[in-house]
C-alpha cells in the first residue's frame, strides 16, 4: 500500500514538473536570449548558455526607449486606478449590500449591464470623450476608463453581504451614521476583499494593451504594455534586444507577484468564488 502511494506521488510530481517546465521555458529562453549577441542568437544549434554574456543588450534597449518613463506612467496609472476603483466600488457596494433605497434594482442593473457587455463596445466613445477633453497623451487618459468599476462593485457587494447584521445594528444604536459604519466598521472587515480587488485591478490594467495603444501615441506617455509593443515595431528581428526589453518590462510585476504570491493567488481565487 505504501509502495502504491509512493509511486502515485512520483507520477503526480513528474506530471507537475513537466508542466512547470512548459510554463517556465519561454521565460528561461527570454533570459538566455537577452544575454546573447545577435550572431549567437541566430546560431543553429542554439547555445544553452551564452558564450559571452552580453549585458549591454539591456543598456542598449534602455537607451533606445524611455523605460524610466514607462515605469512611472505604469505606476501612476495603477495607483489611480486602484484607489479610484477600490474606494468608489466599496462605497457603492456597501450601499447596494446594506441599505434599502428606492431604485436600488434599477441602479444595480446598470452595474450588471456593464459587466455583461464586452469592453470593446465602449472604446470608441471613450476615446471621443478623452479626445474632446484634450486628454490624449496624458496619464489621465490611461486612468479614466478604470476609475470606477462595475466588477469591483459586484465583487465587494458579495463581501459586504456576508457580514452579520448585529455589528451594524449595534453601531446604529450607538448613533453612528451610515458613513461612519461604512468607514470604521465595514471597510476594515472587508480588507481581504479590498486587497483582492486592488490586485485584480492592477493585473488587468497592467496587461491592457489596446486602450494605451489608442490614447497615448507619444512615446513618453506610454505605459509598459504599449511601450514594449512599440519596441517590436522598431526592432523586428534583433531578438536579444527584444528579449532584454521584455525582461526590463516584466520583472517588477514578476517580483511583486513572487513576494506577494499568497495575496495574489487568494485574491484572484476569491474573485472566482465570490462571483
Amino acid at each position, binding site marked *: 500500500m505504501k509502495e502504491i502511494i509512493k509511486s502515485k506521488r512520483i507520477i*503526480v*510530481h513528474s*506530471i*507537475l514538473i513537466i*508542466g*512547470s517546465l512548459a*510554463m517556465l521555458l*519561454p*521565460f528561461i*529562453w*527570454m533570459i538566455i*536570449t537577452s544575454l546573447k549577441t545577435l550572431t549567437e542568437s*541566430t546560431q*543553429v*544549434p542554439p547555445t544553452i548558455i551564452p558564450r559571452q554574456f552580453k549585458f549591454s543588450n539591456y543598456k542598449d534597449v534602455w537607451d533606445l526607449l524611455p523605460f524610466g518613463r514607462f515605469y512611472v506612467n505604469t505606476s501612476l496609472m495603477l495607483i489611480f486606478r486602484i484607489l479610484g476603483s477600490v474606494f468608489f*466600488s466599496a*462605497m*457603492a457596494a*456597501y*450601499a447596494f449590500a446594506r441599505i*434599502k*433605497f428606492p431604485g*436600488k434594482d434599477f*441602479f444595480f442593473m*446598470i*452595474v450588471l*449591464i456593464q459587466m455583461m*457587455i*464586452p469592453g*470593446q*463596445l*465602449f472604446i*470608441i466613445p471613450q476615446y471621443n*470623450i478623452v479626445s474632446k477633453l484634450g486628454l490624449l497623451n496624458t496619464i489621465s487618459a490611461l486612468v479614466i*476608463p478604470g*476609475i*470606477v468599476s462595475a466588477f469591483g462593485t459586484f465583487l465587494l457587494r458579495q463581501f459586504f453581504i456576508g457580514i452579520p447584521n448585529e455589528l451594524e445594528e449595534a453601531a446604529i444604536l450607538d448613533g453612528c451614521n*451610515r458613513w461612519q459604519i*461604512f468607514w470604521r466598521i465595514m471597510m476594515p472587515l472587508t480588507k481581504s476583499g479590498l486587497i483582492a480587488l486592488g490586485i485584480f485591478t492592477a493585473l488587468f490594467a497592467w496587461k491592457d*494593451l*489596446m486602450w494605451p*495603444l489608442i490614447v497615448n501615441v507619444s512615446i513618453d506617455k506610454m505605459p509598459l*504594455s504599449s511601450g514594449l*509593443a512599440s*519596441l*517590436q515595431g522598431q526592432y*523586428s528581428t534583433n*531578438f536579444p534586444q527584444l*528579449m532584454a526589453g*521584455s*525582461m526590463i*518590462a516584466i520583472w517588477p*510585476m514578476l517580483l511583486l*507577484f513572487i513576494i506577494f504570491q*499568497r495575496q*495574489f*493567488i487568494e485574491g*484572484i481565487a476569491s474573485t*472566482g*468564488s465570490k462571483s
Partner: protein
Amino acid sequence: MVIERNTQKATNKAKKINKKNLRDYGWAYLMIAPTILGLIVLNIWPLIQTCYLSFTRTSGFGKNQWVGLDNYIRMFSDSSVIHAVINTLEYTVISVPVGVIISLFIAVLLNSKIKGKTIYRTIYFLPMVSAPAAIAMVWRWLYSSDYGLFNYLLSLVGISGVKWLTDPNIALISVIIVGIWSTIGYNMVILLAGLQEIPKSFYEAADIDGAGPIRQFFAITFPLVSPTMFFVVVTTMIGSLQVFDYIFMMIDKTNVAMEKTQSLVYLFYKYSFITNDKGYGSAIVMLLLIIILIITVIQLKLQKKWVHYQ
C-alpha cells in the same frame, strides 16, 4: 386616553422611521453616485453611442452621416469579416475546452496532499502577471522558422521548416497554444479554490466504499466543482471571443496568414483606429456583442444539464 396615547406613539415611531429612512436614502444615493455616474458616462452612454455609430459612416471631417443598415450589409459580404468570425469561433472552440480541461487536471493534482504546492501554483500563474507584449515576443522567437527553438528541436526528429506563424493553416493554432498557455494558471487557481471547498469526508466515505480515483472524480469532484467550472468556462469563453493582443503582436500586417488569423476585435481595432472608419468598426463590435449574447444564452440553457448547485 390609552388608545390616543398609543396612536401618538405609533405616529412618532413612524416619523422616526421615516426620518431615518430618508437619511438612509441620502447616504445610499451619495455612496453609489460616483460609480453610477461614472458607469453612465463611461459605459452606458458609450454603449448607446456605439450602437448609433454602427448605422453611420465617418466622413473625412469627423462628421457622422446616417447610412442605415449599410455597414451591416457591407459586413456580410466582406470576406475579411466572415473569416474573422470563423477565426474567432475557431479560437474559442479550441482554446476553451482544451484550456479548461488542462487547468482542471492540474488543479486536481495540486489539490492532493503533495509537497511544493505553492511553488507549482506560483509557476503556473507566472504568465498571468506578464505583459502580453513580452509573452508574444518570446513566443514569436520560439516559433521563428529559421532560428526558433521549436524548429531546432523538431529538426532533431527529422521535421524541418515548420512555418508556425506564417503558414495560414498553422498560424491560428500557434496563437491558440499561446492563449491556452497564458490562461492555464488563472483558471487553475480559481478551480483549485473550488476544489478546496469540497468536504474531505466525501472522499473518505468513497474510500471506504472502495471507489477508485476515476470513479471519485466523476461522482464527487466533478459535480461539486461544476459551479466553479461554469464560471471558468463562461469567463474564458468571453475572453477568447475578445482575443486581440497575441494576434496583434504575433501576426504582422504583411503576414500571409493574416486573413486566417485575424479576430473580430482585431478587425474592430484596425477599422476604428487605423483606417479610421469608426462606423464600420462599431458595426463589427456590435456583431461581436450579438455573438457573445447568443453564446451566453446557450451556455445558460446548457448549464442545467451539467452544473449542480447544492
